C-alpha cells in the first residue's frame, strides 16, 4: 500500500487535514523506542487504497529534537510527501519545504490556511510558486476541507526535483527570493485577535491575562464538575443504581466473603458508596461519580486552551520566574498536564532537552502537582468542612513545589537550556479535532483507572480478610501515629494510595478523622509515593537511578512536611 506522509511545521493545521482525509479509521501510537506519537489512517484515492500518516511536526530535517528525529526517519519510509505549509507564514515554512525537496522524495505542497490569507492582506501567486519550487502547489483550508479533493487529485503529479543540498544561509537567501517574487503584502489594521495576542505576552498585562485565564479555568472545571456530580451522576447512583446493588447485597448477605468483596461494609446497615469499599460500591462510585466529572471538565478546558494557542504564551510569561527554580518556561506545560494526570505529564517531559531538567520537573510533578482524581477526592473530603481547608492543602503543595525546586536546582548539576519557541497566532478551536482529543483522553482515563481500582479494591479486601494488612499497619504504626498523628488504620490508605491516590484519600473517610488529621493525611498521601501508573512511566522515562532518587525525595519530603504540619496545626 502506498504511504502518503503529511509533513510540516508545528501549528500549520496538519492534523486537521489529516482528520479530514482519514475520517474515523485512525490509529495513533508511539513511534518505536520513543514517546513521540504519530497517527495513521487509511482511505481510497481513485481505485487505490492508501495509508495516510500524520508525521510529528518539524521545523527542520536536521533534527534538534526527538520529534524531528522521528520525522526524518519516517520520511525515509514514505512514498509521497504532502508538505503542509502555512500560507500566512510562507517564509518560515519554506525552510522545511526546501529541505524536503533536497531529499529526492516526490513532494506535493499543500498551501494551507489559504482562507486566512485574504483578510491578513497576503496575495500569493500560486502558479509562480509552483514554477519556482518545481512541484505541484495546491491551496487548501483544512478546517473547511477546501482544496483537499484537488490535493488528492494532484498526488500523482508529485515530483522529486532533486535539488542539491545547500547550507542554511543559502536556503534562507533562496527563500527571500521566492517570497519576493510570489508574495505581495497589503497594509491593513490589526484584528481583535491580534491585539489580544500582544496583550497576552505583555510584560504587565500578560500577567493579568494569565491570572484571569487560570482563574476562569479553575472556575469552569469546578462548576462543570460539581454540576455533573450534583445533577447527573450522584442522582443516577442514588436512585437508579443503589436499588440494584441493594438487591445484590440482600442476595449475598448470607455469604460473608462474597458480600464483603462485592458490597463491602454496611454503614448503619446501609450501603455507603464512599465508605463501604466493595467492588460494586466504592470501586465504581469513586472513579465514575466523583472523579470522572472533574476529569471531563479538566480535559474540556485544557483542550480549548491548547487549541486556541494560549499555552506557549504562558510558558513565555513564566520563563523568567521558572529559571529561578532551575527550569525554563516550557516546563509549565507538563506541569499543567499534571493537574489532569501525572502520567501524560511525565511523558510530556520528553520535550525537555536536558536530563537534569527532566528529573527536576518529573520529581516536582509527582510530588506536588495533584492529579485531578486526587484533587476531586480532596475537595470531596475536606470541602464539607470549608473550602479554606482545601485551599490550605493547595498552598502547602505549592510551597513544597517552590522550595523543592530551589533545593534541587542548588543540588543538581547540568546545563539549563534556554527557551526557544514559536508563538502561534490565536486560532478559534476546531470542534471536530477538539472532540476527538477529548474523547481519547476521557476514555483513556476510564481504561486506565477502572481496572486498577477494581483489582486494587479486590486485592485489598482479600489481604484484609487474611489479616495481612493489620500486621502491616502494626509494623508502621509508630511512624504514622507519632510523626503524622494519624490512627494506624491510615496506613491502609497509604498502601492503597500506591495503586490510586484518589482511592487512598477516599479510605480516610471512614476513619472518623479530625479536620487537622484529614489535612495531614491528604497532604502526605499526595506527596508520599507516585501512584503505580506514574511509577511505571517514571521508571521508563528517568531510569532506575533517578527514579530511586526521586522517590527518596518524595518519601522524605512527605514525612517532613506531614510531621511539621502535625506540630504546627
Amino acid at each position, binding site marked *: 500500500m502506498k504511504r502518503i506522509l503529511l509533513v510540516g511545521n508545528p501549528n500549520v493545521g496538519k492534523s486537521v487535514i489529516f482528520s479530514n482525509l482519514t475520517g474515523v479509521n485512525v490509529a495513533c501510537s508511539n513511534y518505536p523506542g520513543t514517546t513521540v506519537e504519530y497517527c495513521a489512517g487509511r482511505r481510497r484515492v481513485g481505485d487505490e487504497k492508501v495509508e495516510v500518516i500524520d508525521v510529528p511536526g518539524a521545523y*527542520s530535517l*536536521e533534527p534538534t529534537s526527538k520529534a524531528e528525529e522521528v520525522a526524518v526517519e519516517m520520511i525515509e519510509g514514505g512514498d509521497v510527501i504532502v508538505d503542509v505549509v502555512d500560507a500566512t*507564514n510562507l517564509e*518560515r515554512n519554506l525552510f522545511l519545504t526546501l529541505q524536503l525537496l533536497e531529499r529526492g522524495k516526490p513532494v506535493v505542497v499543500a498551501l494551507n490556511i489559504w482562507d486566512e490569507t485574504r483578510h491578513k492582506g497576503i496575495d500569493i501567486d500560486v502558479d509562480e510558486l509552483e514554477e519556482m519550487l518545481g512541484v505541484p502547489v495546491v491551496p487548501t483550508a483544512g478546517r473547511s476541507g477546501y482544496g483537499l479533493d484537488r490535493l488528492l487529485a494532484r498526488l500523482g503529479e508529485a515530483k522529486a526535483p532533486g535539488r542539491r543540498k545547500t547550507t542554511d544561509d543559502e536556503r534562507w537567501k533562496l527563500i527571500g527570493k521566492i517570497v519576493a517574487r510570489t508574495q505581495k503584502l497589503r497594509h491593513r489594521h490589526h484584528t481583535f485577535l491580534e491585539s489580544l495576542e500582544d496583550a497576552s505576552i505583555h510584560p504587565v498585562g500578560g500577567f493579568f491575562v494569565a491570572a484571569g485565564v487560570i482563574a476562569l479555568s479553575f472556575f469552569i472545571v469546578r462548576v462543570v464538575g460539581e454540576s455533573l456530580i450534583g445533577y447527573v451522576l450522584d442522582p443516577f447512583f442514588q436512585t437508579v443504581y443503589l436499588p440494584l446493588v441493594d438487591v445484590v447485597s440482600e442476595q449475598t448477605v448470607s455469604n460473608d466473603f462474597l458480600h464483603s468483596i462485592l458490597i463491602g461494609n454496611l454503614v448503619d446497615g446501609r450501603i455507603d458508596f464512599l465508605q463501604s469499599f466493595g467492588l460494586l460500591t466504592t470501586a465504581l462510585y469513586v472513579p465514575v461519580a466523583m472523579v470522572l466529572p472533574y476529569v471531563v471538565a479538566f480535559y474540556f478546558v485544557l483542550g480549548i486552551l491548547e487549541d486556541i494557542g494560549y499555552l506557549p504564551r504562558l510558558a*513565555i510569561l513564566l520563563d523568567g520566574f521558572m529559571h529561578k527554580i532551575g527550569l525554563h*518556561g516550557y516546563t509549565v506545560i507538563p506541569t499543567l498536564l499534571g493537574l489532569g494526570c501525572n502520567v501524560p505529564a511525565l511523558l510530556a517531559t520528553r520535550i525537555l532537552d536536558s536530563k537534569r531538567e527532566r528529573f527536576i520537573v518529573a520529581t516536582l510533578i509527582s510530588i506536588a502537582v495533584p492529579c485531578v482524581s486526587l484533587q476531586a477526592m480532596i475537595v470531596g473530603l475536606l470541602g464539607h468542612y470549608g473550602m479554606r481547608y482545601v485551599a490550605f492543602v493547595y498552598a502547602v503543595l505549592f510551597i513544597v513545589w517552590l522550595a523543592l525546586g530551589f533545593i534541587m536546582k542548588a543540588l543538581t548539576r547540568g546545563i*539549563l537550556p534556554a527557551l*526557544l519557541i514559536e*508563538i502561534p497566532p490565536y486560532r478559534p478551536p476546531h470542534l471536530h479535532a477538539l472532540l476527538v482529543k477529548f474523547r481519547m483522553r476521557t476514555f483513556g482515563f476510564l481504561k486506565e483507572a477502572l481496572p486498577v481500582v477494581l483489582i486494587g479494591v479486590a486485592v485489598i479486601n482479600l489481604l484484609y480478610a487474611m489479616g495481612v494488612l493489620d500486621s502491616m499497619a502494626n509494623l508502621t504504626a509508630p511512624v504514622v501515629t507519632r510523626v503524622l498523628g494519624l490512627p494506624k488504620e491510615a496506613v491502609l490508605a497509604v498502601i492503597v494510595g500506591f495503586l490510586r491516590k484518589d482511592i487512598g484519600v477516599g479510605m480516610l473517610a471512614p476513619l472518623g478523622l479530625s479536620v487537622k488529621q484529614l489535612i495531614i493525611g491528604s497532604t502526605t498521601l499526595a506527596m508520599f509515593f507516585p501512584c503505580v501508573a506514574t511509577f511505571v512511566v517514571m521508571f521508563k522515562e528517568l531510569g532506575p537511578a533517578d527514579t530511586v532518587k526521586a522517590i527518596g525525595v518524595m518519601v522524605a519530603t512527605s514525612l517532613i512536611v506531614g510531621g511539621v504540619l502535625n506540630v504546627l496545626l
Partner: protein
Amino acid sequence: MPITLDQMKKGSKGRVVSVVGGRGVALKLSAQGISPGMTIEKISALRGGPVVLRVGRTRVAIGLGLARKVLVEVDEG
C-alpha cells in the same frame, strides 16, 4: 557595531550578523529563521525573561541565555 538581542531596543529592527555557540544552537535558531542575513524586529522583552521577536510573519520567543548569543546589526532611524 553589532549588539546582542537582549540589548536591542523594543520596536527596533535589525539584521542577524552571527550566532555565537555550537552547531546545535545555530541549527535550532536557523530553523526559526534566526540566521545570518535575516531581518528581525524586537517586539518586547520580559524582565529577566525571554525576548520576543518578529521573524518574517512569525513571532518567536527566545530565552535570555540564548538571546545573548545572537549578534545583530541594528537598522538606523
